[in-house]
Each structure stands twice: as structure tokens, then as C-alpha cells.
């Protein structure tokens, strides 16, 4: 009789532990989901801001130069114009707001390469007031 009661008591303890653990877990889970959004958001903002700024600056730079060169209708600038148009098109097609885009890194490297080429053709140093270091972003 005593043995049976002990077993019951033991089971009851185990169940109680599980129950307390479970209740703590549930409360933690709710807190965690809130904290996760906030934390995730902070990282997301950092990354998104960097990319948005970088790609946006390539676009603004290219579009302005394109307009500046289009004033001259001679062939002298036809190569530069072609490359500028190609970069602009690539940027406009790039889903810069989507961090889950599967060719994100590849496309980014392609745009960076094209931008460097553009700068080389225009005789402008590619870190000309556009580099991430230059803009003194600090988080």
C-alpha cells in the first residue's frame, strides 16, 4: 500500500514539474515572439538600409549621368550610354525590398561590377562620395 502511494506521489511530482515548465514556457513563448520581431527588425533595418542606400545611389548616379551625356548626340558617348542604360535596367528589375530573393547576392555583385565599369568609363573614382565608409553610417 505504501509503495503504491509513493509511486503515485512520484508521478504527481513529475506531472507537476511538467506543468510548471509548460506554464513558464507559454509565458516565455509569447514574450519571445515579441522580442523576436523587435530584434529581427533591428537587424533587418541595418541590412536593408545598407542595400537600399547602395543600390539607390547607383541608380541616381547613373540616371543623372545618362541625362548629362544624352545632351551630346555624337558617338563619343555611345558606349558609356549603353552601359549606363544596362545598369539602370538591372537596378530597376532588382527587388531591393525583398531579402528573400534567391539571386540577391549574385545580382548585387553584378550591379557592383557594372557600377565600377561605369565609373571607369566616366573617369570617376568609384568610391567618390558613394562608398559605405564615405557616408559614415554608424549603428
Amino acid at each position, binding site marked *: 500500500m505504501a509503495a503504491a502511494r509513493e509511486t503515485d506521489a512520484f508521478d504527481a511530482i513529475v506531472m507537476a514539474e511538467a506543468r510548471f515548465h509548460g506554464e513558464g514556457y507559454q509565458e516565455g513563448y509569447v514574450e519571445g515572439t515579441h522580442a523576436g520581431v523587435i530584434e529581427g527588425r533591428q537587424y*533587418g533595418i541595418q541590412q536593408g538600409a545598407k542595400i537600399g542606400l547602395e543600390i539607390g545611389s547607383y541608380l*541616381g548616379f547613373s540616371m543623372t549621368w545618362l541625362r548629362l551625356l544624352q545632351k551630346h548626340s555624337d558617338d563619343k558617348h555611345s558606349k558609356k550610354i549603353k552601359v549606363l542604360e544596362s545598369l539602370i535596367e538591372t537596378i530597376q528589375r532588382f527587388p531591393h525590398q525583398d531579402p528573400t530573393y534567391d539571386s540577391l547576392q549574385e545580382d548585387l555583385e553584378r550591379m557592383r561590377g557594372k557600377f565600377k565599369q561605369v565609373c571607369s568609363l566616366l573617369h570617376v573614382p568609384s568610391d567618390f562620395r558613394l562608398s559605405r565608409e564615405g557616408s559614415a553610417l554608424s549603428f
Partner: protein
Amino acid sequence: MSWVQSAVNQMNDEVFDEDADEMGIAQKEWKSTMEKRVKEGYREGVEAGKQLTLQQGFNQGYGEAAKIMFSCGQLKGSLSALLSWCYNNQCDSSALNKVTDLLNKTEKYEEDTIKDLSGRHPQQPSFADLLDTVEDMELGHALSSEEQCNGIREQVSENGAQFCGQSCTNSGTNSFQSKCCRRPEEHKDSERPTLAGLKEQTVALMEQLGLSPSTFEYL
């Protein structure tokens, strides 16, 4: 977590059936053990909850920041292009200074915007946001009254809210009006440029440099 206490007490009654003295010690042990379980459960719960929403939060923040900073970057890129064009064409130093100045302002705006984005809670819009919202509404008169209000607010500290209130009544945009007529401490926000304002200054500068309208109509 007061429910723990009462739950512990409850459990004590159900399971233990012993001497009063022994029960004192047993009760303490029980309570301590159960509190540990709760804390462990809580920690695990937090981790699990975070895992679930970290990516979601990231995507949300990324999208928001990328969108805002893309526009900012565009303006900066345009000004950089203008500056490099000026260098290549040996424009006079006053033109270079004007462009450099605007570029510096844009960079400052960029820093401030990022701080705003990082600092604020999703529900609280920033002042800059509000002005942008008004612009987006594309109410011509609202824009001009914003400019009016901006200029006037710089004098708020001297003239007081009353002055501000008077001209704001003309704007016709209620929510804007209520934000506009805030406490004088807000006046330092008014010195902060808006993206639209910087764009306008860029366009004006391009005109001054003798560039045809097609150069900047996309802005």
C-alpha cells in the same frame, strides 16, 4: 508570478500528507524546484518564440529600410554624379561648393533617417514621416503651408504657439495642424530637411548650373 505560489500551495495539499514540521522544509524544497522548472520553461519559451519571429521581423525591417533608403540613395547618387561632372568640366568653385553642401546635407539626412528607423517603434511615426505623408497626399496647398509652417516654427520660440496656431488654421489638414502646433521644444525638428526639400534644392541647383530640365525631371 503569484499563480506559482498558489499552485504550489495547492499541490502541497494534494500530494503531501505529513507532519507539520517536515511539511515546512518540504514545502520550501517543492517551491524552489517548481520555480526552477518555471524559469527553465520560460527561457526555452523565449528562445522558441524568438526563433519563430526573428526572420519575420528581419524581413519587415529590411523591406521598410530598403524602401526609404533607396530614395535617399537616389538623391545622393544624383548629387555625386553632379559633383563628378562639375569636376570633370572644371566648374567654378562656387558651383562645387553648392553641390558639396547639398551632398553633405543629404548625408546628414541619411544618418538621421537611419537613426529614426532604428529608434522608433513601428507604431510611432517620426515628424519627417508625417511631412512625407502630407506630401504623398499631393495636396498642393498643404505643401505650401508646410513650408510656411516650417519657416514660421523657427520663430516659435520667440513668438510662441499662438503665432503658429494662427497660420496653421489655414492649412485645412487637421491631423497636420495638431502635430504642427506642438510644444516649442519640437522646433529643432523643423530645421531638419525633408527629402522633398533636398530634391527641390537639387533641382534648383541644376537649373542654376545651366542644365536642361530633362536632366532632372526624373527627380
